Structures are given as C-alpha cells and as structure tokens.
C-alpha cells in the first residue's frame, strides 16, 4: 500500500519545480496532496498522510 521513492532533486528539476522543492529532504505525499520539509518523525508523517488523504476526499 505504501511506496517510497528517493528522488535526486538536481537530476529531475521538472519534478522538483512542480513540487516547489526549496529545502531537502522534502517528502511529497501522493504527487502533491501533502508535503513536509525536513526530517519527519513517524507520528508526524502519519498525521501528514492522513491530512493529505482527507484533502483529496474533500475535493
């Protein structure tokens, strides 16, 4: 259910620009439904995932 992809930001500038990557690491959830800059503790990441899913559900 969960996939994780490390993206080297310099090699894929279009994708980095689209997700407005300004600081690394940046974690983007479901192609822009959510994002977190910096290191993410597990509970924080879970909260962000749930937020991202809610946002999509509202749309």
């Amino acid at each position, binding site marked *: 259910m969960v996939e994780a*992809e490390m993206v*080297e*930001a310099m090699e894929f500038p279009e994708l980095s620009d689209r997700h407005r990557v300004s600081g*690394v*690491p940046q974690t983007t959830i479901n192609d822009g439904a959510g994002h977190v800059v910096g290191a993410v503790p597990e*509970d924080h*990441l879970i909260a962000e995932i749930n937020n991202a*899913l809610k946002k999509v559900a509202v749309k």
Partner: protein
Amino acid sequence: MTQRLLNDQVIGQVQEVFDQLKEPVEVLFFGQKDNCDYCDETLQLLQEVTDISDKLTLQVHDIDEDAELARQYKVDKAPGTVIAGRDGDKIVDYGVRLAGIPSGHEFSSLVHDMVLVSSRDSGLGAKTRQALAKLTEPILLQVFVTPT
C-alpha cells in the same frame, strides 16, 4: 579499465554493515540510452556495491526496452533503482525505489535500504504500523534529496 568508484576503505566499511544482511536482496536497475547523465555511473556504483555480498544480486534493464517491467515496478525515471527482496526465484517488491544516483549522503541510504529490505522488517514502531494497516488507498512518498 574504468576506475572504481568505491575505494578499499569504503568497501571495508560497507562490508561491515553488510554483515547484518539476512535474506537475499535483488536490485533492479533501469537505465536509458539517451539523455541520462548519471545512468552509467549509477550502474557502476550498483555493480560495485552488489559485488560486496553474495546476498545481493543485480538485474540490469532499460526503461524503454523493458517498459513493461518498468511499469510493473513503477519506475518512470532513469536511472531508476528498485531494492527488492528475493525469495527463491520470486522477486518481492516492497515499494522501495531510488530515482537518480545514490551518491554522497544517499550512498548510506542505499546501503541502509539494502539492509532493511534484507531484514524483511521496516523497523517502524507499533503505532505507525497500526496506522498504516488502516490505509485504504495507496500512498506514494517521494523524498527529494540532493547528494551533498
């Protein structure tokens, strides 16, 4: 002969970490013929790393020529690397991928990913596992990094 990317000291350090490897790990590399600045270097790096342990094997593919396989493993960027498990002749995809060259700091992520997949355990806490078990839709986490 091409110059090696990893010197003896680094290989020694990686060897120590690879002492923790448990189950076999299959690394799938997807390159591309044109417009891929880091494909050759990434492939060479993966060759050198997978040579360090018998528990690691490397498959080499092309994102265009092996498009079906790339789709199966959701690789849409080159160089793309999948760190999967190998169970007999079955490849087990845990959804762990790298897009771009894992050099600099990301070299340790590569080594760590291999150890994690080999352990067949995410290392996540009980609460996180419970939360993830409740997911009803797929989640894609893309972690943007720079190699320095």
